[in-house]
Protein backbone atom coordinates (compact mmCIF):
# COMPACT_ATOMS: atom_id res chain seq x y z
CA UNK A 1 0.00 0.00 0.00
CA UNK A 2 2.86 2.40 0.74
CA UNK A 3 4.07 2.36 -2.86
CA UNK A 4 0.52 3.01 -4.00
CA UNK A 5 0.33 5.96 -1.61
CA UNK A 6 3.65 7.20 -3.01
CA UNK A 7 2.14 7.06 -6.48
CA UNK A 8 -1.27 8.44 -5.68
CA UNK A 9 -0.22 11.26 -3.39
CA UNK A 10 -2.85 13.68 -2.11
CA UNK A 11 -1.59 16.42 -4.42
CA UNK A 12 -1.95 14.14 -7.44
CA UNK A 13 -5.43 13.00 -6.44
CA UNK A 14 -6.46 16.60 -5.90
CA UNK A 15 -5.18 17.76 -9.30
CA UNK A 16 -6.85 14.75 -10.92
CA UNK A 17 -10.18 15.64 -9.39
CA UNK A 18 -9.90 19.36 -10.04
CA UNK A 19 -7.34 19.96 -12.78
CA UNK A 20 -6.04 23.55 -12.89
CA UNK A 21 -5.85 25.46 -16.17
CA UNK A 22 -8.31 23.03 -17.74
CA UNK A 23 -9.67 23.88 -21.19
CA UNK A 24 -8.35 25.63 -24.29
CA UNK A 25 -7.12 29.20 -24.77
CA UNK A 26 -8.85 31.04 -27.61
CA UNK A 27 -7.10 32.61 -29.35
CA UNK A 28 -3.71 31.08 -28.72
CA UNK A 29 -0.22 31.32 -30.15
CA UNK A 30 0.72 27.68 -29.98
CA UNK A 31 -1.01 24.33 -29.67
CA UNK A 32 -0.19 20.65 -29.84
CA UNK A 33 -1.92 17.30 -29.49
CA UNK A 34 -0.45 14.48 -27.48
CA UNK A 35 -1.42 10.85 -27.76
CA UNK A 36 -0.42 7.72 -25.91
CA UNK A 37 -1.43 4.98 -28.35
CA UNK A 38 -0.87 2.25 -25.76
CA UNK A 39 -3.69 3.45 -23.58
CA UNK A 40 -5.57 5.90 -25.78
CA UNK A 41 -4.85 8.94 -23.58
CA UNK A 42 -5.20 12.20 -25.51
CA UNK A 43 -4.22 15.70 -24.43
CA UNK A 44 -4.34 19.10 -26.07
CA UNK A 45 -2.14 21.95 -24.89
CA UNK A 46 -2.72 25.57 -25.92
CA UNK A 47 -0.53 28.48 -24.85
CA UNK A 48 0.24 32.13 -25.39
CA UNK A 49 3.70 33.65 -25.51
CA UNK A 50 4.78 37.10 -24.41
CA UNK A 51 8.35 38.22 -24.88
CA UNK A 52 9.76 34.72 -24.77
CA UNK A 53 7.79 33.62 -21.74
CA UNK A 54 4.72 31.41 -21.46
CA UNK A 55 2.14 34.00 -20.41
CA UNK A 56 -0.79 31.60 -20.26
CA UNK A 57 -1.35 27.90 -20.81
CA UNK A 58 -4.25 25.46 -20.69
CA UNK A 59 -4.75 21.76 -21.31
CA UNK A 60 -7.65 19.37 -21.82
CA UNK A 61 -8.30 15.81 -22.89
CA UNK A 62 -8.84 12.38 -21.42
CA UNK A 63 -6.50 10.29 -19.40
CA UNK A 64 -5.72 8.58 -16.12
CA UNK A 65 -5.13 10.32 -12.79
CA UNK A 66 -1.37 10.47 -13.38
CA UNK A 67 -1.62 12.07 -16.82
CA UNK A 68 -4.32 14.56 -15.76
CA UNK A 69 -2.51 15.59 -12.59
CA UNK A 70 0.72 15.89 -14.53
CA UNK A 71 -0.92 18.22 -17.08
CA UNK A 72 -2.41 20.27 -14.30
CA UNK A 73 0.82 20.62 -12.28
CA UNK A 74 2.80 21.24 -15.47
CA UNK A 75 0.64 24.17 -16.50
CA UNK A 76 1.06 25.67 -13.02
CA UNK A 77 4.80 25.13 -13.12
CA UNK A 78 5.56 26.64 -16.52
CA UNK A 79 3.22 29.62 -16.47
CA UNK A 80 5.39 32.74 -16.46
CA UNK A 81 8.53 30.77 -17.28
CA UNK A 82 10.77 31.42 -20.28
CA UNK A 83 10.88 28.77 -23.01
CA UNK A 84 14.39 27.77 -21.92
CA UNK A 85 13.28 27.46 -18.28
CA UNK A 86 10.32 25.30 -19.31
CA UNK A 87 12.57 22.96 -21.31
CA UNK A 88 15.02 22.68 -18.40
CA UNK A 89 12.14 21.82 -16.10
CA UNK A 90 11.02 19.08 -18.51
CA UNK A 91 14.54 17.64 -18.46
CA UNK A 92 14.69 17.56 -14.67
CA UNK A 93 11.19 16.11 -14.52
CA UNK A 94 12.13 13.37 -16.97
CA UNK A 95 15.28 12.66 -14.98
CA UNK A 96 13.21 12.39 -11.80
CA UNK A 97 11.02 9.69 -13.37
CA UNK A 98 13.52 7.70 -15.35
CA UNK A 99 16.92 8.27 -13.74
CA UNK A 100 18.80 5.31 -12.30
CA UNK A 101 17.19 4.83 -8.87
CA UNK A 102 20.46 3.59 -7.32
CA UNK A 103 22.37 6.80 -8.01
CA UNK A 104 19.38 9.04 -7.60
CA UNK A 105 19.55 12.03 -5.38
CA UNK A 106 16.65 13.94 -3.92
CA UNK A 107 14.45 15.79 -6.39
CA UNK A 108 16.12 19.08 -7.34
CA UNK A 109 14.49 22.01 -5.54
CA UNK A 110 13.70 23.68 -8.88
CA UNK A 111 11.03 21.02 -9.49
CA UNK A 112 8.97 22.32 -6.58
CA UNK A 113 5.56 20.61 -6.42
CA UNK A 114 6.46 18.43 -9.42
CA UNK A 115 8.49 16.30 -7.01
CA UNK A 116 5.22 14.55 -6.06
CA UNK A 117 5.67 12.44 -9.20
CA UNK A 118 8.75 10.79 -7.74
CA UNK A 119 6.64 7.74 -6.83
CA UNK A 120 5.98 7.08 -10.51
CA UNK A 121 9.51 5.74 -10.94
CA UNK A 122 8.43 2.61 -9.06
CA UNK A 123 5.75 2.05 -11.73
CA UNK A 124 7.70 2.04 -15.01
CA UNK A 125 4.62 1.39 -17.16
CA UNK A 126 3.10 4.63 -15.86
CA UNK A 127 6.04 6.93 -16.70
CA UNK A 128 4.49 7.69 -20.09
CA UNK A 129 1.30 8.82 -18.38
CA UNK A 130 3.28 11.39 -16.39
CA UNK A 131 5.33 12.67 -19.34
CA UNK A 132 2.56 12.88 -21.97
CA UNK A 133 1.64 16.49 -21.09
CA UNK A 134 5.29 17.51 -21.15
CA UNK A 135 5.95 15.92 -24.53
CA UNK A 136 2.88 17.77 -25.80
CA UNK A 137 4.12 21.07 -24.39
CA UNK A 138 7.51 20.44 -25.98
CA UNK A 139 5.84 19.84 -29.35
CA UNK A 140 3.83 23.06 -28.98
CA UNK A 141 6.99 25.05 -28.24
CA UNK A 142 8.76 23.48 -31.19
CA UNK A 143 5.72 24.26 -33.35
CA UNK A 144 5.37 20.65 -34.44
CA UNK A 145 2.22 20.19 -36.47
CA UNK A 146 1.87 16.40 -36.27
CA UNK A 147 0.37 15.07 -33.00
CA UNK A 148 3.11 13.90 -30.66
CA UNK A 149 3.10 10.30 -29.54
CA UNK A 150 4.69 8.64 -26.54
CA UNK A 151 5.63 5.68 -28.72
Amino acid at each position, binding site marked *: *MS*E*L*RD*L*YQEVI*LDHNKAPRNWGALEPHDREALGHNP*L*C*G*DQLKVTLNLNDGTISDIRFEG*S*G*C*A*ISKASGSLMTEAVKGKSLAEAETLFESFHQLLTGDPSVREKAPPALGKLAVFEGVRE*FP*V*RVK*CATLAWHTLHAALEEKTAPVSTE
Partner: protein
Amino acid sequence: MGAMLEKRQASSGRLDVESVRADFPIFEQTVYGKPLVYLDSAASAAKPRQVIAAEVECYERYYSNVHRGVHYLSQRSTEAYEAARTKVSRFLGCGCLREVVFTRGTTEAINLVASTFGRQRVGAGDEVLITGLEHHSNIVPWQMLCEEKGARLVVAPIDDRGEVILEELEPRLGPRTKIAAFSHVSNALGTINPVGEMVAMAKERGIPTLIDGAQAAPHLAIDVGAIGCDFYALSGHKMYGPSGIGALWAKLEHLEAMPPYQGGGEMITTVRFEKTEYAAPPAKFEAGTPNIAGAIGMGAAVDYLHGLGPAAVAAHEEELLAEATRRLQELPGVRLIGTARHKAAVVSFVVEGVHAHDVGTILDREGVAVRAGHHCAQPVMERFGVAATARASFGVYNTRDDIDRLVAGIAKVKEVFA
Protein backbone atom coordinates in the same frame (compact mmCIF):
# COMPACT_ATOMS: atom_id res chain seq x y z
CA MET B 1 -8.09 -40.30 -21.84
CA GLY B 2 -10.71 -41.96 -19.64
CA ALA B 3 -8.37 -41.89 -16.65
CA MET B 4 -7.71 -38.23 -17.21
CA LEU B 5 -11.40 -37.41 -17.32
CA GLU B 6 -11.84 -39.21 -14.02
CA LYS B 7 -8.99 -37.22 -12.55
CA ARG B 8 -10.34 -33.84 -13.66
CA GLN B 9 -14.01 -34.25 -13.05
CA ALA B 10 -15.88 -35.31 -9.99
CA SER B 11 -18.84 -37.61 -10.59
CA SER B 12 -20.98 -34.53 -11.14
CA GLY B 13 -18.92 -33.70 -14.26
CA ARG B 14 -17.52 -30.60 -12.59
CA LEU B 15 -14.01 -29.40 -13.15
CA ASP B 16 -11.59 -30.24 -10.34
CA VAL B 17 -10.07 -26.77 -10.24
CA GLU B 18 -7.40 -27.54 -7.65
CA SER B 19 -5.97 -30.28 -9.82
CA VAL B 20 -6.19 -27.97 -12.86
CA ARG B 21 -4.33 -25.21 -11.01
CA ALA B 22 -1.58 -27.65 -10.14
CA ASP B 23 -0.93 -28.02 -13.88
CA PHE B 24 0.02 -24.35 -14.21
CA PRO B 25 3.50 -23.62 -12.82
CA ILE B 26 2.99 -19.86 -13.13
CA PHE B 27 0.70 -19.94 -10.12
CA GLU B 28 3.53 -21.20 -7.92
CA GLN B 29 4.57 -17.65 -7.14
CA THR B 30 3.51 -14.50 -5.39
CA VAL B 31 3.51 -11.03 -6.91
CA TYR B 32 4.16 -8.12 -4.56
CA GLY B 33 4.03 -10.70 -1.78
CA LYS B 34 0.52 -11.87 -2.69
CA PRO B 35 -0.63 -15.05 -4.44
CA LEU B 36 -1.14 -14.32 -8.13
CA VAL B 37 -4.72 -13.89 -9.32
CA TYR B 38 -4.61 -14.07 -13.10
CA LEU B 39 -7.67 -12.49 -14.71
CA ASP B 40 -6.15 -11.68 -18.08
CA SER B 41 -6.65 -14.92 -19.99
CA ALA B 42 -8.45 -13.12 -22.81
CA ALA B 43 -5.17 -11.34 -23.55
CA SER B 44 -3.21 -14.57 -23.26
CA ALA B 45 -3.81 -17.67 -21.19
CA ALA B 46 -1.34 -19.28 -18.77
CA LYS B 47 0.31 -22.52 -19.92
CA PRO B 48 -0.10 -25.96 -18.38
CA ARG B 49 2.92 -28.24 -17.85
CA GLN B 50 1.58 -30.56 -20.53
CA VAL B 51 2.01 -27.85 -23.19
CA ILE B 52 5.39 -26.75 -21.88
CA ALA B 53 6.54 -30.37 -21.71
CA ALA B 54 5.47 -31.02 -25.31
CA GLU B 55 7.65 -28.13 -26.53
CA VAL B 56 10.56 -29.17 -24.34
CA GLU B 57 10.28 -32.76 -25.49
CA CYS B 58 10.31 -31.63 -29.11
CA TYR B 59 13.49 -29.60 -28.67
CA GLU B 60 15.23 -32.13 -26.44
CA ARG B 61 14.29 -35.40 -28.10
CA TYR B 62 13.48 -35.15 -31.78
CA TYR B 63 13.68 -31.58 -33.09
CA SER B 64 14.65 -31.15 -36.72
CA ASN B 65 13.18 -29.43 -39.75
CA VAL B 66 9.93 -30.80 -41.13
CA HIS B 67 9.05 -32.18 -44.57
CA ARG B 68 12.68 -32.05 -45.67
CA GLY B 69 14.94 -34.64 -44.25
CA VAL B 70 15.30 -38.27 -45.03
CA HIS B 71 16.80 -38.77 -41.61
CA TYR B 72 15.22 -40.08 -38.42
CA LEU B 73 14.77 -36.80 -36.55
CA SER B 74 13.20 -35.02 -39.49
CA GLN B 75 10.72 -37.84 -39.88
CA ARG B 76 9.82 -37.73 -36.21
CA SER B 77 9.43 -33.95 -36.26
CA THR B 78 7.29 -34.15 -39.37
CA GLU B 79 5.10 -36.80 -37.77
CA ALA B 80 4.63 -34.74 -34.60
CA TYR B 81 3.96 -31.55 -36.59
CA GLU B 82 1.37 -33.29 -38.76
CA ALA B 83 -0.14 -34.99 -35.71
CA ALA B 84 -0.67 -31.50 -34.28
CA ARG B 85 -2.48 -30.54 -37.49
CA THR B 86 -4.74 -33.56 -37.04
CA LYS B 87 -5.49 -32.48 -33.46
CA VAL B 88 -6.33 -28.92 -34.49
CA SER B 89 -8.52 -30.16 -37.34
CA ARG B 90 -10.47 -32.40 -34.94
CA PHE B 91 -10.73 -29.54 -32.47
CA LEU B 92 -12.45 -27.53 -35.21
CA GLY B 93 -14.69 -30.44 -36.14
CA CYS B 94 -13.31 -30.67 -39.66
CA GLY B 95 -12.46 -33.88 -41.42
CA CYS B 96 -9.88 -32.74 -43.95
CA LEU B 97 -6.28 -32.16 -42.87
CA ARG B 98 -5.55 -30.17 -46.00
CA GLU B 99 -7.95 -27.51 -44.77
CA VAL B 100 -5.82 -26.55 -41.74
CA VAL B 101 -2.99 -24.06 -42.33
CA PHE B 102 -0.64 -23.21 -39.47
CA THR B 103 -0.09 -19.46 -39.06
CA ARG B 104 1.51 -17.21 -36.47
CA GLY B 105 -1.92 -16.64 -34.96
CA THR B 106 -5.38 -15.29 -35.66
CA THR B 107 -4.01 -11.99 -36.94
CA GLU B 108 -1.86 -13.65 -39.57
CA ALA B 109 -4.70 -15.99 -40.52
CA ILE B 110 -7.01 -13.04 -41.21
CA ASN B 111 -4.29 -11.16 -43.07
CA LEU B 112 -3.68 -14.28 -45.15
CA VAL B 113 -7.32 -14.42 -46.22
CA ALA B 114 -7.57 -10.66 -46.83
CA SER B 115 -4.49 -10.55 -49.00
CA THR B 116 -5.19 -13.67 -51.07
CA PHE B 117 -8.89 -14.51 -51.22
CA GLY B 118 -9.78 -10.88 -50.50
CA ARG B 119 -7.54 -9.45 -53.22
CA GLN B 120 -8.96 -11.90 -55.75
CA ARG B 121 -12.54 -11.21 -54.89
CA VAL B 122 -12.93 -7.59 -53.84
CA GLY B 123 -12.88 -4.83 -56.43
CA ALA B 124 -13.62 -1.12 -56.72
CA GLY B 125 -17.06 -0.25 -55.33
CA ASP B 126 -17.41 -3.58 -53.53
CA GLU B 127 -18.02 -3.95 -49.81
CA VAL B 128 -16.59 -5.93 -46.92
CA LEU B 129 -18.90 -6.36 -43.94
CA ILE B 130 -17.73 -6.57 -40.33
CA THR B 131 -19.46 -5.83 -37.01
CA GLY B 132 -19.04 -3.13 -34.39
CA LEU B 133 -17.63 -5.73 -31.98
CA GLU B 134 -14.43 -6.55 -33.82
CA HIS B 135 -10.88 -6.63 -32.50
CA HIS B 136 -8.48 -4.45 -34.49
CA SER B 137 -7.15 -7.61 -36.15
CA ASN B 138 -10.52 -8.19 -37.80
CA ILE B 139 -10.82 -4.53 -38.84
CA VAL B 140 -7.46 -3.34 -40.09
CA PRO B 141 -6.67 -6.11 -42.65
CA TRP B 142 -10.05 -5.48 -44.29
CA GLN B 143 -9.56 -1.72 -44.13
CA MET B 144 -6.20 -2.11 -45.88
CA LEU B 145 -7.81 -4.30 -48.53
CA CYS B 146 -10.63 -1.80 -49.07
CA GLU B 147 -8.19 1.06 -49.36
CA GLU B 148 -6.14 -0.81 -51.93
CA LYS B 149 -9.17 -1.78 -54.01
CA GLY B 150 -11.35 1.29 -53.62
CA ALA B 151 -13.89 -0.82 -51.75
CA ARG B 152 -15.96 0.11 -48.70
CA LEU B 153 -15.83 -1.31 -45.18
CA VAL B 154 -19.39 -1.64 -43.87
CA VAL B 155 -20.05 -2.10 -40.15
CA ALA B 156 -23.09 -3.80 -38.61
CA PRO B 157 -23.84 -1.96 -35.35
CA ILE B 158 -24.18 -3.38 -31.84
CA ASP B 159 -26.78 -2.54 -29.20
CA ASP B 160 -26.40 -1.30 -25.62
CA ARG B 161 -25.88 -4.82 -24.34
CA GLY B 162 -23.01 -5.34 -26.76
CA GLU B 163 -24.87 -7.69 -29.09
CA VAL B 164 -24.78 -7.45 -32.87
CA ILE B 165 -28.19 -6.23 -34.07
CA LEU B 166 -29.16 -8.95 -36.55
CA GLU B 167 -31.92 -6.80 -38.09
CA GLU B 168 -29.21 -4.26 -38.90
CA LEU B 169 -26.79 -6.88 -40.13
CA GLU B 170 -29.10 -8.41 -42.69
CA PRO B 171 -29.76 -5.30 -44.86
CA ARG B 172 -26.02 -4.63 -44.94
CA LEU B 173 -25.42 -7.92 -46.71
CA GLY B 174 -25.95 -6.59 -50.21
CA PRO B 175 -25.06 -7.46 -53.80
CA ARG B 176 -21.74 -5.64 -53.42
CA THR B 177 -20.74 -7.48 -50.23
CA LYS B 178 -17.87 -9.77 -51.18
CA ILE B 179 -16.80 -11.01 -47.75
CA ALA B 180 -18.35 -10.87 -44.28
CA ALA B 181 -16.06 -11.25 -41.24
CA PHE B 182 -17.38 -11.68 -37.69
CA SER B 183 -15.89 -12.47 -34.31
CA HIS B 184 -17.21 -15.63 -32.68
CA VAL B 185 -16.65 -14.15 -29.20
CA SER B 186 -15.87 -10.49 -28.49
CA ASN B 187 -12.55 -9.98 -26.74
CA ALA B 188 -13.55 -6.67 -25.17
CA LEU B 189 -17.04 -7.56 -23.93
CA GLY B 190 -17.27 -11.35 -24.03
CA THR B 191 -20.37 -11.39 -26.26
CA ILE B 192 -20.90 -14.77 -27.93
CA ASN B 193 -22.24 -14.04 -31.39
CA PRO B 194 -24.87 -16.29 -32.98
CA VAL B 195 -22.37 -17.06 -35.74
CA GLY B 196 -24.46 -19.86 -37.25
CA GLU B 197 -27.34 -17.49 -37.81
CA MET B 198 -25.07 -14.73 -39.07
CA VAL B 199 -23.29 -17.03 -41.50
CA ALA B 200 -26.64 -18.37 -42.76
CA MET B 201 -27.74 -14.82 -43.59
CA ALA B 202 -24.58 -14.32 -45.64
CA LYS B 203 -24.80 -17.73 -47.24
CA GLU B 204 -28.33 -17.10 -48.49
CA ARG B 205 -26.83 -14.29 -50.54
CA GLY B 206 -23.78 -16.26 -51.64
CA ILE B 207 -21.40 -14.23 -49.47
CA PRO B 208 -18.38 -16.05 -48.05
CA THR B 209 -17.68 -15.63 -44.33
CA LEU B 210 -14.68 -15.57 -42.03
CA ILE B 211 -15.02 -16.13 -38.30
CA ASP B 212 -12.42 -14.71 -35.90
CA GLY B 213 -12.37 -17.50 -33.33
CA ALA B 214 -9.47 -16.28 -31.17
CA GLN B 215 -11.65 -15.82 -28.09
CA ALA B 216 -13.98 -18.73 -28.76
CA ALA B 217 -11.33 -21.46 -28.89
CA PRO B 218 -10.60 -21.57 -25.13
CA HIS B 219 -14.28 -21.50 -24.13
CA LEU B 220 -16.50 -23.20 -26.70
CA ALA B 221 -16.71 -26.45 -28.60
CA ILE B 222 -16.19 -25.42 -32.21
CA ASP B 223 -17.66 -27.12 -35.26
CA VAL B 224 -16.85 -25.27 -38.47
CA GLY B 225 -19.20 -27.50 -40.44
CA ALA B 226 -22.15 -26.64 -38.21
CA ILE B 227 -21.29 -22.93 -38.30
CA GLY B 228 -21.17 -23.13 -42.08
CA CYS B 229 -18.42 -20.53 -42.50
CA ASP B 230 -15.77 -20.47 -45.22
CA PHE B 231 -12.84 -19.49 -42.98
CA TYR B 232 -12.15 -19.83 -39.25
CA ALA B 233 -9.11 -18.26 -37.56
CA LEU B 234 -7.68 -19.05 -34.12
CA SER B 235 -4.60 -18.59 -31.94
CA GLY B 236 -2.71 -21.11 -29.82
CA HIS B 237 -1.89 -18.75 -26.97
CA LYS B 238 -5.50 -17.94 -26.05
CA MET B 239 -6.29 -21.64 -25.62
CA TYR B 240 -3.43 -22.47 -23.22
CA GLY B 241 -1.00 -23.16 -26.06
CA PRO B 242 2.18 -21.33 -27.05
CA SER B 243 2.28 -17.84 -28.52
CA GLY B 244 3.37 -17.32 -32.11
CA ILE B 245 1.27 -20.20 -33.44
CA GLY B 246 -2.29 -20.35 -34.67
CA ALA B 247 -4.30 -21.78 -37.49
CA LEU B 248 -6.55 -20.93 -40.36
CA TRP B 249 -9.23 -23.40 -41.31
CA ALA B 250 -10.59 -22.85 -44.82
CA LYS B 251 -12.70 -24.81 -47.24
CA LEU B 252 -10.41 -26.74 -49.53
CA GLU B 253 -11.99 -25.29 -52.67
CA HIS B 254 -10.94 -21.83 -51.49
CA LEU B 255 -7.41 -22.86 -50.52
CA GLU B 256 -7.00 -24.47 -53.94
CA ALA B 257 -8.20 -21.37 -55.78
CA MET B 258 -6.37 -18.80 -53.64
CA PRO B 259 -2.93 -17.53 -54.67
CA PRO B 260 -0.09 -18.15 -52.20
CA TYR B 261 0.32 -15.70 -49.31
CA GLN B 262 4.12 -15.72 -49.07
CA GLY B 263 6.70 -17.23 -51.37
CA GLY B 264 9.59 -19.40 -50.27
CA GLY B 265 10.54 -22.95 -49.49
CA GLU B 266 7.97 -25.59 -48.55
CA MET B 267 5.19 -23.96 -50.58
CA ILE B 268 6.46 -25.14 -53.97
CA THR B 269 6.71 -28.32 -55.97
CA THR B 270 9.23 -27.11 -58.54
CA VAL B 271 11.09 -23.83 -58.89
CA ARG B 272 12.60 -22.65 -62.15
CA PHE B 273 13.57 -19.09 -62.93
CA GLU B 274 10.90 -19.02 -65.64
CA LYS B 275 8.06 -20.45 -63.55
CA THR B 276 7.36 -21.95 -60.14
CA GLU B 277 4.74 -24.61 -59.45
CA TYR B 278 3.06 -24.23 -56.10
CA ALA B 279 2.46 -27.04 -53.67
CA ALA B 280 -1.06 -28.17 -52.78
CA PRO B 281 -2.68 -26.77 -49.62
CA PRO B 282 -1.88 -26.53 -46.81
CA ALA B 283 1.85 -26.46 -47.77
CA LYS B 284 1.09 -23.75 -50.33
CA PHE B 285 0.39 -21.37 -47.43
CA GLU B 286 3.21 -22.44 -45.13
CA ALA B 287 6.28 -20.90 -46.76
CA GLY B 288 9.52 -21.26 -44.84
CA THR B 289 10.31 -23.33 -41.78
CA PRO B 290 7.19 -23.18 -39.61
CA ASN B 291 6.94 -22.80 -35.83
CA ILE B 292 7.40 -26.55 -35.38
CA ALA B 293 7.54 -26.76 -31.59
CA GLY B 294 4.77 -24.15 -31.36
CA ALA B 295 2.45 -26.25 -33.52
CA ILE B 296 3.24 -29.31 -31.41
CA GLY B 297 2.51 -27.24 -28.28
CA MET B 298 -0.79 -26.12 -29.77
CA GLY B 299 -1.63 -29.78 -30.39
CA ALA B 300 -0.85 -30.48 -26.73
CA ALA B 301 -3.18 -27.62 -25.72
CA VAL B 302 -5.96 -29.23 -27.77
CA ASP B 303 -5.32 -32.51 -25.92
CA TYR B 304 -5.33 -30.66 -22.61
CA LEU B 305 -8.69 -29.00 -23.25
CA HIS B 306 -10.08 -32.27 -24.51
CA GLY B 307 -8.90 -33.96 -21.32
CA LEU B 308 -10.71 -31.41 -19.20
CA GLY B 309 -13.85 -31.89 -21.23
CA PRO B 310 -15.50 -29.00 -23.09
CA ALA B 311 -18.73 -29.34 -21.11
CA ALA B 312 -16.95 -29.17 -17.75
CA VAL B 313 -14.89 -26.17 -18.92
CA ALA B 314 -18.02 -24.37 -20.12
CA ALA B 315 -19.91 -25.09 -16.89
CA HIS B 316 -17.01 -23.89 -14.75
CA GLU B 317 -16.62 -20.66 -16.70
CA GLU B 318 -20.36 -19.99 -16.75
CA GLU B 319 -20.36 -20.26 -12.98
CA LEU B 320 -17.48 -17.81 -12.66
CA LEU B 321 -19.11 -15.40 -15.10
CA ALA B 322 -22.41 -15.45 -13.21
CA GLU B 323 -20.68 -14.96 -9.86
CA ALA B 324 -18.37 -12.17 -11.09
CA THR B 325 -21.26 -10.40 -12.82
CA ARG B 326 -23.43 -10.57 -9.71
CA ARG B 327 -20.67 -9.41 -7.36
CA LEU B 328 -19.58 -6.50 -9.56
CA GLN B 329 -23.15 -5.39 -10.19
CA GLU B 330 -23.62 -5.14 -6.44
CA LEU B 331 -20.75 -2.67 -6.10
CA PRO B 332 -21.86 0.96 -6.10
CA GLY B 333 -19.98 3.06 -8.64
CA VAL B 334 -19.05 0.06 -10.79
CA ARG B 335 -20.61 -0.17 -14.23
CA LEU B 336 -20.40 -3.29 -16.40
CA ILE B 337 -19.71 -2.67 -20.08
CA GLY B 338 -21.19 -5.46 -22.16
CA THR B 339 -24.17 -7.33 -20.79
CA ALA B 340 -24.98 -9.63 -23.69
CA ARG B 341 -27.33 -12.52 -22.98
CA HIS B 342 -24.74 -15.04 -24.18
CA LYS B 343 -21.28 -14.30 -22.93
CA ALA B 344 -17.93 -15.95 -22.43
CA ALA B 345 -16.28 -15.43 -19.03
CA VAL B 346 -15.19 -11.84 -19.64
CA VAL B 347 -16.29 -8.95 -17.45
CA SER B 348 -15.42 -5.46 -18.66
CA PHE B 349 -16.12 -2.66 -16.20
CA VAL B 350 -15.48 0.95 -15.26
CA VAL B 351 -15.19 2.40 -11.77
CA GLU B 352 -16.92 5.75 -11.54
CA GLY B 353 -14.45 8.64 -11.42
CA VAL B 354 -11.39 6.42 -11.80
CA HIS B 355 -9.59 5.80 -15.07
CA ALA B 356 -9.10 2.15 -16.04
CA HIS B 357 -5.30 2.45 -15.85
CA ASP B 358 -5.46 3.56 -12.26
CA VAL B 359 -7.81 0.65 -11.54
CA GLY B 360 -5.34 -1.68 -13.27
CA THR B 361 -2.31 -0.38 -11.37
CA ILE B 362 -3.99 -0.66 -7.97
CA LEU B 363 -5.37 -4.15 -8.69
CA ASP B 364 -1.90 -5.17 -9.86
CA ARG B 365 -0.37 -4.17 -6.54
CA GLU B 366 -3.03 -6.30 -4.89
CA GLY B 367 -1.74 -9.24 -6.92
CA VAL B 368 -4.70 -9.19 -9.33
CA ALA B 369 -3.77 -9.06 -13.02
CA VAL B 370 -6.44 -7.52 -15.25
CA ARG B 371 -6.25 -5.78 -18.60
CA ALA B 372 -6.80 -2.03 -18.58
CA GLY B 373 -7.22 -0.10 -21.77
CA HIS B 374 -9.09 -0.24 -25.05
CA HIS B 375 -8.42 -3.98 -25.59
CA CYS B 376 -7.48 -3.42 -29.24
CA ALA B 377 -11.14 -2.62 -29.83
CA GLN B 378 -11.31 1.17 -29.89
CA PRO B 379 -14.59 1.29 -31.85
CA VAL B 380 -16.23 -0.80 -29.10
CA MET B 381 -15.00 1.65 -26.45
CA GLU B 382 -16.32 4.55 -28.51
CA ARG B 383 -19.71 2.86 -28.83
CA PHE B 384 -20.01 2.80 -25.03
CA GLY B 385 -18.60 6.30 -24.58
CA VAL B 386 -15.59 5.21 -22.53
CA ALA B 387 -11.89 5.70 -23.30
CA ALA B 388 -10.94 2.46 -21.63
CA THR B 389 -12.24 -0.27 -19.36
CA ALA B 390 -10.76 -2.69 -16.88
CA ARG B 391 -11.36 -6.25 -18.00
CA ALA B 392 -11.34 -9.38 -15.89
CA SER B 393 -11.30 -12.52 -18.01
CA PHE B 394 -11.48 -16.02 -16.58
CA GLY B 395 -10.00 -19.37 -17.51
CA VAL B 396 -10.08 -22.97 -16.37
CA TYR B 397 -7.78 -22.21 -13.42
CA ASN B 398 -9.80 -19.37 -11.88
CA THR B 399 -11.81 -19.80 -8.69
CA ARG B 400 -14.38 -17.98 -6.59
CA ASP B 401 -11.49 -16.86 -4.38
CA ASP B 402 -10.12 -14.97 -7.38
CA ILE B 403 -13.42 -13.10 -7.61
CA ASP B 404 -13.19 -12.26 -3.88
CA ARG B 405 -9.72 -10.85 -4.46
CA LEU B 406 -10.97 -8.82 -7.44
CA VAL B 407 -13.81 -7.38 -5.39
CA ALA B 408 -11.43 -6.58 -2.50
CA GLY B 409 -9.07 -4.94 -5.00
CA ILE B 410 -11.86 -2.72 -6.32
CA ALA B 411 -12.57 -1.70 -2.70
CA LYS B 412 -8.90 -0.68 -2.47
CA VAL B 413 -9.28 1.39 -5.66
CA LYS B 414 -12.15 3.25 -4.05
CA GLU B 415 -10.15 3.72 -0.86
CA VAL B 416 -7.21 5.27 -2.73
CA PHE B 417 -9.50 7.51 -4.78
CA ALA B 418 -11.90 8.32 -1.95
